């Protein structure tokens, strides 16, 4: 035991020496030289003593010693720190070599940097969505999410009971999304959250101004009208003034006192509804008097729950207690029996809720990875070409005794250095790109915290290293192969193995570009189709906006009166031609009143049925839109009050059910109701320009709208922007606490929808072009080096009678053959991906023959050019020169 300890101690001392050797390199080298010199001197002295002449003595000593440097080298080899020295040396050498070929280095770093940057940016967004705590919430191990059943939610009353039952182990808070109208000077509509009194405490947040709720403020129904506003809305609406705390604002028309401002960046816990106000649950009867009773109804779960574990409690322990609390809940009919599980609060959404975003993200991720792979393949090709040029240098190294592993290490170091440089560029690019994506695409991405984080940096680093190996290892292994004699002598016979590998690389690149070019083609086709769509009305003179009367406490009768009054008032305004109040406005998603039901020709039961989109409209809807009927007439005010429901249907539906016969005067069945058709119109663009739903039915306004905001559609004589201020002031005069929101000029809306599609098309198009270019470059490189290597062979062929044209054809055929395999593989790949693509872009037919044909032609054309250029040079070879060179 003691012995082992002692040995260990001395070993440590020995190692310390090694480290010292590394750090004080020069001193140690000098000492070694001195020691060896001493040895030689002693040997010389001995020789002198034996009677040799001085010069002879020294020479004999040196000979006996046998090459000081070699032994010094061996001594150095024995040190383990040698490995580190080697690496340092390799890096310095790689740096110098890369510095000499600056164009190559720059091209590689930039291409790879782009690929890595794109991947890192996307990963950053995904990471922020799934792994990081929501913005503004300090991360904590004690913070957990309670997930329950299918909907991941609880009923409020159940939440309160469970909260009391499990209070020893966990502090539970709940939140529910809603939208309210805030009135300070101007009424605005914001997303808000109803929360339990301890919500902010559980999350561990501190207010930017004022304070948060105290538990007593969430105890009594409808007593404490207090609200916390977001930092965002505080800056926007209240100009960041300090006297907002304590002031009174209107929430859905009811006076509330502002008690505090949330810290900057915090917008609640829902990624798709960024909250600007938080209200205690107990205020729900004040703000939403006619809604469904959230506080008492246990049948439908609406509340999300999070919690903070008490000190020393584990997730499993809390779960056990929670199960007990759930078991003690009263027996009532519930939509879903709560089965509570505890998961750490990481990310914005429980992973199970991600499916809707998954398809788009998956598609984007695949695109970027493909591009990165292509970049790597290209760089690998470049490396191959470059190492061909260095063959002589490598052969000499091998001859001088360098081990093959050592040589491979040297070459791979070069690749890794390039990859690290590219990685750094990629990191910088990814921050910029992530922020651009947030601004451009908004939506759920806007809330994400994309600031630099260790995980994203680690991911980028790993990606860079992987890329470095991917494009560096194969060329390095190839280059370091022995077989020195031909290289040193200078006649580089291109061995078939080399070209085959490079050919395969190019083939792979071609396959990948086929996929990208096809995707681009499909997008372009789609764009074209969308551009041709006629919405069915003059969108440039139509503006729509929404008001939420229900939230402001209007009942059905008052709502009807309100709209009559509104219509009367607005029609007197100059510039207003016509007003309608439909539950659905074309080109927007504001249509809650739409449902899909079965329509069948009642006269002929065997005629089959169709699914149709149904909308409730008012009498002036069609005149406001400016739509004229194709057959029969449109709805008017008498139809609103008729006993039998009357409807206007789309031409497409009429043709489907009645064929060429006129449907006017006939009846059809709509979800059990019998409806008379009074006329047909040309299809309107429902919801979205790109969304084809040609089966449409328009009924007189249906009355069952309870929660929906009400839309108002106004047709103006001139540009709508001029009339909007007058409309707003009229509304304010009618009810000053009523927010007007989602004001849209319909032509702008159409533009915006096309706009997003256009950006996407351009993006994919760019990728496709880039891929094509990279593949072409790769092919060019392969053919060019093949030609250069086989110059002698070409000379022989030409001397034997081949003409320039024949030689050119030989190489072009070679190039096309490679590409043909690549195109075939790529087509298969693309067809496999077809389903993924059509789930992203609706209406796209992945097996469009035109696109397939064009893609194949494009690639073959590019290949032909890429092989023809270097092949041409082959034709110019002078057989006399090449043959004489040997």
């Amino acid at each position, binding site marked *: 035991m003691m012995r082992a300890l*002692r*040995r260990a101690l001395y070993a440590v001392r*020995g190692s310390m020496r090694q480290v010292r050797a590394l750090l004080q390199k020069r001193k140690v080298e000098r000492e070694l030289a*001195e*020691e060896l010199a001493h040895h030689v001197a002693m040997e010389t*002295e001995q020789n002198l003593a034996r009677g040799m002449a001085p010069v002879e003595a020294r020479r004999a000593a040196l000979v006996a010693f046998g090459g000081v440097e070699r032994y010094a080298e*061996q001594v150095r*080899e024995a040190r383990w720190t040698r490995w580190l020295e080697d690496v340092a040396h390799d890096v310095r050498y790689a740096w110098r070599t890369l510095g000499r070929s600056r164009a190559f280095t720059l091209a590689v770093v930039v291409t790879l940097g782009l690929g890595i940057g794109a991947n890192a940016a996307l990963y950053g967004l995904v990471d922020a969505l799934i792994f990081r705590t929501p913005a503004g919430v300090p991360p904590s191990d004690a913070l957990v999410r309670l997930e329950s059943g299918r909907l991941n939610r609880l009923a409020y009353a159940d939440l309160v009971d469970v909260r009391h039952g499990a209070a020893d182990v966990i502090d539970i808070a709940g939140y529910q999304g809603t939208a309210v109208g805030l009135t300070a000077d101007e009424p605005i509509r914001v997303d808000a959250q109803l929360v339990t009194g301890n919500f902010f405490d559980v999350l561990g947040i501190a207010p930017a101004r004022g304070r948060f709720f105290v538990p007593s403020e969430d105890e009594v129904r409808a007593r404490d009208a207090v609200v916390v506003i977001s930092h965002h809305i505080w800056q926007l609406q209240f100009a960041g003034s300090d006297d907002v705390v304590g002031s009174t604002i209107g929430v859905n028309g009811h006076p509330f006192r502002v008690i505090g401002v949330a810290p900057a960046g915090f917008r609640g816990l829902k990624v798709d509804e960024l909250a600007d106000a938080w209200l205690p649950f107990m205020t729900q009867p004040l703000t939403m008097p006619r809604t469904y009773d959230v506080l008492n109804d246990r049948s439908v779960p609406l509340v999300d729950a999070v919690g903070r574990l008490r000190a020393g409690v584990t997730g499993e322990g809390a779960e056990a207690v929670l199960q007990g609390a759930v078991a003690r809940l009263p027996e009532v009919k519930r939509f879903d029996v709560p089965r509570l599980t505890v998961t750490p609060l990481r990310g914005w959404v429980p992973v199970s809720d991600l499916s809707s975003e998954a398809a788009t993200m998956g598609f984007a991720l695949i695109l970027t990875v493909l591009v990165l792979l292509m970049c790597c393949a290209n760089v690998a090709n470049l490396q191959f070409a470059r190492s061909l040029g260095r063959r002589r240098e490598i052969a000499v190294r091998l001859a001088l005794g360098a081990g093959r592993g050592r040589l491979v290490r040297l070459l791979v170091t070069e690749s890794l250095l390039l990859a690290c440089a590219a990685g750094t560029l990629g990191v910088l690019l990814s921050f910029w790109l992530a922020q651009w994506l947030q601004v451009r695409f908004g939506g759920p991405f806007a809330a994400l915290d994309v600031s630099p984080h260790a995980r994203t940096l680690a991911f980028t680093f790993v990606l860079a290293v992987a890329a470095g190996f991917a494009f560096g290892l194969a060329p390095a292994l190839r280059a370091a192969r022995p077989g020195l004699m031909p290289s040193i002598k200078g006649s580089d016979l291109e061995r078939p193995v080399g070209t085959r590998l490079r050919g395969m690389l190019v083939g792979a690149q071609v396959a990948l570009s086929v996929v990208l070019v096809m995707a681009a083609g499909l997008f372009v086709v789609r764009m074209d189709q969308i551009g041709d769509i006629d919405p069915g009305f003059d969108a440039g003179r139509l503006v729509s906006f929404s008001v939420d009367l229900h939230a402001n406490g209007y009942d059905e009768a008052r709502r009807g009166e309100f709209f009559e009054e509104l219509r009367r008032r607005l029609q007197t305004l100059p510039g207003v031609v016509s007003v309608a109040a439909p539950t659905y406005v074309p080109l927007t998603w504001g249509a809650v009143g739409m449902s899909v039901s079965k329509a069948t020709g009642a006269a002929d039961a065997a005629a089959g049925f169709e699914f149709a989109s149904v909308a409730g409209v008012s009498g002036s809807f069609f005149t406001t839109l400016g739509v004229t009927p194709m057959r029969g007439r449109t709805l008017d005010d008498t139809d609103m009050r008729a006993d039998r429901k009357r409807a206007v249907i789309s031409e497409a539906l009429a043709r489907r059910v009645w064929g060429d016969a006129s449907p006017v005067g006939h009846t059809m069945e709509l979800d059990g109701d019998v409806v008379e058709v009074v006329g047909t119109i040309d299809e309107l663009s429902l919801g979205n320009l790109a969304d084809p739903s040609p089966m449409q039915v328009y009924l007189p306004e249906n009355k069952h709208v309870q929660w929906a905001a009400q839309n108002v559609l106004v047709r103006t004589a001139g540009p709508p922007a001029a009339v909007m201020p007058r409309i707003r002031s009229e509304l304010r005069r009618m009810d000053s606490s009523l927010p007007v929101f989602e004001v849209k000029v319909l032509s702008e809306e159409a533009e915006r929808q096309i706009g997003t599609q256009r950006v996407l098309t351009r993006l994919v198009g760019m990728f496709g072009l880039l891929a094509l270019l990279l593949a072409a470059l790769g092919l060019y490189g392969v053919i060019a080096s093949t030609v250069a290597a086989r110059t002698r062979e070409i000379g022989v062929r030409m001397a034997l009678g081949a003409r320039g044209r024949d030689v050119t054809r030989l190489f072009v055929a070679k190039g096309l053959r490679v590409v043909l395999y690549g195109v075939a593989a790529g087509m298969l790949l693309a067809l496999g991906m077809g389903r993924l693509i059509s789930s992203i872009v609706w209406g796209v037919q992945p097996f469009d023959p035109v696109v397939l044909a064009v893609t194949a032609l494009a690639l073959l054309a590019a290949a032909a050019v890429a092989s023809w250029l270097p092949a041409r040079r082959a034709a110019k070879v002078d057989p006399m020169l090449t043959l004489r060179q040997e």
Partner: protein
Amino acid sequence: MAPTNDVLRGTLDLLILRTLQPEPMHGWGISQRIQQLSREALQVGQGSLYPALQRLEQRGLIVSEWSASDNNRRAKYYRLTASGRDALGEETAQWRRYVAAVEHVLEGA
């Protein structure tokens, strides 16, 4: 001396440790002493000696320090550590066992 390989390398280590047992010595001295003690049969190739000294120092069996030699030259002296002394005993025993084994094989077969 025959080309270095592991067995011979180990043997050299043993010889060095033995040489250093009585007193500290510098590199040249060690090579001379081995030559002497083996009655001129073993001549340590200098290329093997210094790497071997390096190795032994790494393992903590010997330590070195600079000091003045007999003729007032600066030289690097090596000496055994306590650990080295233990190792010497072990290695000697191991060597003897090895030799006996080889003998048995040569006789027996």
